[in-house]
């Protein structure tokens, strides 16, 4: 044991009890980073993978070439979705604590990543989310009741009780299913985009995964296939600094940004302030235009912070300072957008309070409605019959007889 080890072990800047320290996060000034043409060659914009695209400055003004110039209406919609995502999470967390649902995962602090992107894409574009992108559903106009019913595994659960809470999907809304296996959606999105290219269609694909998940093979496969076939796809890494208990250094973030992985494959890559909705929107729009005009894939790293626990099974105070979130240098995405709108004269504290109240009411009403479709403990329940459906398109003989067996037991 007295061996002198030379194995390098990454260390987060702060552990429980320590003072939070985000000195390692390299931050550019708002408005400072150039915006190249969408058909620029990768080698002429490598610095984008290291700098940080930011639009909102510390005084809440929108600056520079990446300013997407959203109009008041768009800003209000964005704010509403951000608030909805946050309030929904808060509510569902409480419902989990009270035993109404079995499990939950929040997006707290990183809502802009989903809302900003979804608003910059076309409805025909296909989205391949991770479990921390429920905002995509909200921004595409999904009824919160649908999501709640999934979390409840009730009679209206779109998954028919087959998945844990938050593993949503929405075929009509073009949002793909979430897998428990990290990262698998990344190369699938590339395949979808390849199909779009094969068919000569305009629709593109976008996918998200956490920085921790970049270590999985799927990340590499996605980048390789996207680069080789120049697939029309946007690959988003959500670097929220943590992967359960391990900080981003354990995925290889100590020496380089995650966006920096892209240029080595010949992929346009941009690092951005993930808590700045305007930056997310602008870069996504740029990447979408690039993909749609046949200029290939873009890798985007969203620098943000996982403000809440990993999931309802997790207790982050065991591995990071309790109040780390407060020291996060990029602030809170909702607060920042709100301040910006106020500074612009488009918004007031009073209107904001009203918005929050409205959204709370919507969420309350939605929950009530969701419960009318049942829960894990109260009917109406899903039909047990369903357990054997959809393994295959048509139910084969051996499953028919297993179903009969099961129903036999249920009748006893």
């Amino acid at each position, binding site marked *: 044991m007295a061996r002198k080890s030379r194995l390098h072990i990454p260390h987060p800047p702060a552990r429980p009890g320590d003072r939070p320290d985000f000195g390692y996060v390299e931050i550019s000034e708002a408005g400072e980073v150039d915006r190249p043409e969408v058909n620029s060659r990768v080698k002429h914009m490598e610095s984008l993978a290291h700098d940080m695209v930011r639009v909102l400055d510390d005084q809440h003004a929108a600056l520079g070439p990446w300013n997407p110039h959203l109009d008041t209406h768009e800003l209000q919609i964005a704010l509403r979705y951000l608030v909805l995502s946050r309030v929904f999470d808060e509510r569902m967390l409480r419902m989990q604590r009270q035993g109404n649902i079995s499990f939950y995962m929040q997006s707290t602090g990183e809502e802009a990543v989903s809302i900003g992107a979804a608003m910059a894409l076309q409805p025909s574009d*296909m989205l391949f989310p991770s479990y921390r992108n429920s905002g995509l559903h909200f921004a595409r106009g999904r009824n919160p009741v649908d999501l709640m019913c999934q979390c409840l595994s009730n009679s209206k659960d*779109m*998954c*028919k009780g*087959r*998945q844990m809470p938050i*593993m949503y*999907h929405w*075929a009509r809304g073009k949002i*793909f*299913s979430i*897998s*428990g*296996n990290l990262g*698998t959606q*990344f*190369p*699938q*999105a*590339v*395949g*979808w*985009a*390849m*199909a*779009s*290219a*094969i*068919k000569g269609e305009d629709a593109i*694909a976008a996918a998200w995964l956490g920085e921790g998940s970049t270590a999985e*093979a*799927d990340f*590499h*496969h*996605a980048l*390789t*296939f996207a680069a*080789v076939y120049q697939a029309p796809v946007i690959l988003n890494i959500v670097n929220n600094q943590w992967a359960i208990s391990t900080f981003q250094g354990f995925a290889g973030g100590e020496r380089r940004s995650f966006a920096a992985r892209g240029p080595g494959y010949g992929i346009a890559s941009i690092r951005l302030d993930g808590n700045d909705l305007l930056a997310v929107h602008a870069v996504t729009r740029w990447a979408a235009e690039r993909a749609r005009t046949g200029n290939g894939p873009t890798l985007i790293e969203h620098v943000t912070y996982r403000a809440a626990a990993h999931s309802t099974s997790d207790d982050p105070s065991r591995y990071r300072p309790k109040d780390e979130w407060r020291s996060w240098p990029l602030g809170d995405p909702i607060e920042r957008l709100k301040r910006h709108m106020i500074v612009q004269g488009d918004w007031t504290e009073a209107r904001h309070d009203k918005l929050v109240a409205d959204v709370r009411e919507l969420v309350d009403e939605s929950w009530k409605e969701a419960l009318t479709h049942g829960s894990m403990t109260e009917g109406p329940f899903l039909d047990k019959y*369903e357990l054997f*459906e*959809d*393994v*295959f*398109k048509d139910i*084969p*003989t*051996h499953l028919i007889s297993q179903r009969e067996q099961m129903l036999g037991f249920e009748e006893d």
Partner: protein
Amino acid sequence: MARMNMIQALNSAMDLMLGRDPDVVIIGEDVGYFGGVFRCTEGLQRKYGEHRVIDAPIAEGGIIASTIGMGVHGLRPVAEIQFADYIYPGIDQIISELARLRYRTAGDFFAPVTIRAPCGGGIRGGQTHSQSPEGIFSHVCGLKVVMPSTPYDAKGLLISAIEDDDPVVFFEPKRIYNGPFDGDPDKPATAWSSHPKGEVPDGYYSVPIGRAEVVREGEDVTILCYGTMVHVAEATAARSEVDAEIIDVRSMVPLDVGTLTKSVEKTGRCVIIHEATRFSGFGAELAATVQEECFYYLEAPITRVCGWDTPYPHAFEWEYFPGQKRLAAALDQVMSA
């Protein structure tokens, strides 16, 4: 009616399906310009274009994942894994994704992917070019798993697989690509042209997935087999005094239990033969099911003749390969039981 070997029959199936359905695409290592290391896709890229018959990076996981995305976008992809031994880097995408997608989305999403993979030994390929992993895939609910033993079935089953809206893992016993092989490496190779099932219609037809075939009727004992072993069984039966009924299982999932049990109820005896290693191989499922269904008809224990429970060797290939001698001994043994 044309005469085709199994490679030509597979090629013909893909050619036909590429022609009939613009959503069919083929992707795999060396499948495009070159036409595949076994030449199964020869000429197809020239005929249908580079965006329908696609050379892939060497990444089985990426190949499977991309076909899932394509399938979700309405294409009907056929992925070639160069050797079944190399399917493992793609197995997470197969098990956790492809096989589960329809279930976890309650039917809202699915990917009608066919995965072709040459399997089995007898070609001096050593441990990484000879494996038979069908048992593993048969345990994964949501996958269909098939293995043809003749050019006729190969074409008909591949057409069924491509048309199927469920994912199908399609194993091709490469030892019989060019001709039936009865397990004796010293005999001169025979070609498919001399075998009735080497007669293959040029046009469209299909062989349904989920049906076994009685390839030889007999009274004494039922031999359950598939792939190359069908020919080993036929040769063994032809020389044996035991009047064996031979069933080509063809489809591991769904399994045609009815055809199997009907035969064993008649013969009262059952021998299972496959190339894969014995322990927890697909023969275990066959034996477990047959004894469960036909218990009162059985006059002897069901016996398995399989690859030994070692990696597939290079030098001792014929000691390893479950051939006629071992099958004949098993037949004698169950008859004298």
